[in-house]
């Protein structure tokens, strides 16, 4: 099995060796880099093809109906047909839209998606750029999408996209804070920002067992970051028509679709890397484990999209600032306490202490929530 | 049931000329100018708090506006008020201040029948567009409407 495990890693070394024979070293490295970039882009396109088809089939099954099954066997080629159609679709730039911003937005929305792909550890040794500031890099790049979507909302000079753009600003900046705070717990345990070392830190026990609450906060704010499921206010179909991409057609809309779906997959992949131990797994080759975990979390994303209604904008903001941020802070401090107390004593006390700590936090939250509800009910009765 | 209400109304408003019309649904015919007083009396004193329907009818000699009133507390049986207005310049006092529910219905009667309602907050057309000439539900209005020249003619 070892050969199968690092299939791609050996492949890249062999190509590098083959090139190095007749090219100077720097040229070989350059070509290797270009090859990895090409491989990343192809991976992104294949993922979106697969995700789009999977999403429509799975949500179809939730709704008791078949998804697309006429295009190619089992409907696999559905997104290829969509791509061809969107490729040959006319592109309209509204007259009174701001031309430059309107056309810049779709380009800007795709750039962060590809940049984040570089840092994801697909398998042992299979990471395009193992930065030692991996997670900080992801947070920095992912806030670029906020600007791109705001440009789209403001640029197309349409009332609905303006509302969508304003909502995206409010939502994404509010959910970045709890996302980062909850991820800090993980970084504290591994002592390094690089995703590869985070995954190696989880060889004995995945962090979800140590920090279930941290995972929950991270997952909720990651969904909100990517405008999916209960937090898809920026393109709320029933309220503001199609939100920020109301005026986009043809290839520009395809860019938004590409960015949206791949961002969703990336968020699922990062959640898998941070909390479920990316490619750590008993028998299967590492990259298979990575995709299994990523698609398991992506299934939960689809599940939410199929069932839950949407939050209103002020409830959304209230949830972020009044519930998630304080909870994330408390979780961070308690994790710090637990980490120092069980510093040298090995694995078992650490797991035990963190589970007890999490239980305490959840109990505290439930008590405060019940107290708040009772007080609110008294206020109502009095009013 | 509406017979006793009619008696009480006659005592209350001796000088107005009220008539009791027999028929499947007995109705009370009221003059246009004292409609508002009678309506307020019915609403406050007699407890008719629910105005179900406002209808305009185009009779050969007059326009008629029919109000169906119910009281939610007591019992069944509509109390029907019939108000007639002149053919040339139909004008009836509006009851929106008593029952806000009549707002859209009166606008619709104005829009389709052409009966103006004095005192209505914003009497505009509700079903047809603003610049439309003519009131379709009048008997002299052809059902196909006025054919506009150009595209309409061909089809």
């Amino acid at each position, binding site marked *: 099995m070892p050969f199968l495990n690092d299939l791609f890693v050996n492949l890249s070394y062999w190509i590098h060796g083959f090139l190095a024979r007749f090219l100077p070293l720097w040229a070989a490295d350059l070509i290797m880099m270009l090859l990895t970039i090409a491989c990343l882009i192809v991976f992104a396109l294949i993922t979106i093809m697969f995700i789009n088809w999977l999403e429509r089939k799975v949500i179809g099954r939730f709704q008791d109906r078949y998804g697309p*099954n006429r295009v190619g066997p089992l409907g696999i080629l559905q997104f290829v047909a969509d791509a061809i159609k969107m490729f040959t679709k006319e592109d309209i730039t509204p007259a009174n839209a701001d031309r430059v911003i309107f056309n810049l937005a779709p380009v800007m929305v795709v750039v962060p998606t590809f940049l984040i792909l570089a840092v994801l550890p697909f398998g042992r040794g299979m990471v395009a750029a193992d930065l030692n500031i991996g997670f900080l890099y992801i947070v920095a790049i992912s806030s670029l999408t906020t600007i791109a979507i705001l440009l789209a909302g403001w640029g197309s000079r349409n009332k609905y996209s303006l509302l969508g753009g304003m909502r995206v600003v409010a939502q994404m900046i509010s959910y970045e804070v709890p996302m980062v705070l909850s991820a800090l717990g993980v970084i504290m345990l591994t002592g390094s920002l690089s995703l590869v070392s985070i995954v190696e830190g989880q060889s004995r026990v995945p962090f979800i067992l140590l920090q279930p609450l941290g995972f929950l906060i991270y997952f909720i704010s990651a969904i909100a970051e990517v405008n999916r499921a209960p937090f898809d206010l920026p393109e709320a179909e029933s309220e503001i028509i199609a939100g920020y991409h109301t005026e986009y057609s043809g290839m520009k809309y395809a860019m938004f679709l590409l960015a949206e779906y791949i961002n969703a997959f990336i968020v699922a992949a990062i959640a898998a890397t941070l909390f479920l131990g990316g490619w750590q797994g008993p028998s299967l080759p590492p990259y298979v484990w990575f995709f299994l975990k990523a698609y398991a979390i992506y299934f939960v994303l689809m599940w939410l999209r199929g069932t839950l209604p949407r939050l209103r904008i002020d409830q959304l903001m209230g949830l972020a600032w009044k519930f998630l941020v304080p909870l994330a802070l408390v979780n961070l401090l308690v994790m710090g306490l637990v980490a120092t107390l069980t510093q040298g004593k090995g694995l078992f006390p650490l797991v035990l202490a963190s589970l007890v700590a999490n239980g305490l936090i959840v109990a505290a939250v439930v008590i405060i929530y019940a107290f708040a509800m009772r007080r609110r009910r008294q206020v109502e009765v009095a009013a | 049931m509406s017979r006793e209400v009619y008696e009480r109304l006659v005592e209350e408003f001796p000088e107005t000329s009220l008539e009791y019309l027999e028929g499947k649904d007995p109705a009370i015919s009221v003059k246009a100018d004292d409609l508002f007083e009678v309506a307020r009396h019915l609403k406050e004193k007699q407890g008719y708090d629910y105005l179900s329907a406002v209808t305009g009818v185009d009779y050969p000699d007059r326009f008629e506006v029919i109000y169906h009133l119910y009281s939610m507390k007591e019992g069944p049986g509509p109390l029907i008020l019939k108000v007639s207005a002149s053919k040339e310049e139909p004008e009836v006092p509006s009851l929106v201040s008593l029952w806000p529910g009549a707002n859209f219905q009166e606008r619709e009667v104005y829009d389709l029948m052409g009966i103006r309602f004095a005192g209505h907050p914003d009497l505009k057309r509700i079903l047809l567009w603003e610049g439309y000439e003519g009131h379709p539900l009048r008997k002299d209005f052809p059902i196909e409407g*006025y054919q506009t020249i150009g595209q309409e003619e061909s089809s």
Partner: protein
Amino acid sequence: MTEEEHIAEQIRRNIIITTIDKIYNWGRRSSVWPMGFGLACCAFEMICAAASRFDFARFGMEMMRPTPRQADLLIVSGTVTKKMAPQVVRLYDQMPEPKYVLAMGACAISGGPFKDTYNVVNGIDTYLPVDVYVPGCPPRPEALLEGFIKLHQMIEGQTILTSPWYRKEVEREMPVPILGPRGLVLPGEGHE
């Protein structure tokens, strides 16, 4: 140019075009996105066609886009009244180019049971070029699916060379009628 040379020359030119045409049309046929836009009772039958029993998501038409900008097919489902006609034509104009119109139900085809009344347009084809007519009042979801299949066959029959949206001189912009004092008036010859 005798008959054989003409055909030979056609065949030579067509081989490249047909393969591109095939892919081009296959792509467009299998991802026609209808616009989420319903007028009257036929709209409800369209929703039933999208529901679980007669699901037209199987043909890849699942993305009912609310905006005309991302839609390919305008399903005029229901009675087109004179007050609504300018909006329907404006929505058609705002759709990007390879666009199709499906007139669903007797009202959209010819005014249906409400034909020749003061506020109903006798059929949408007075204002829009209609590609597929689906009769019925309302047509059953199966009839609508048959209409979609006819549309797919029509799309497959088109070629890049002859399709109207690639040719310069074809005018694809429909004039938006204006609500005049007595009814709809085309901007060109509004006499009133």
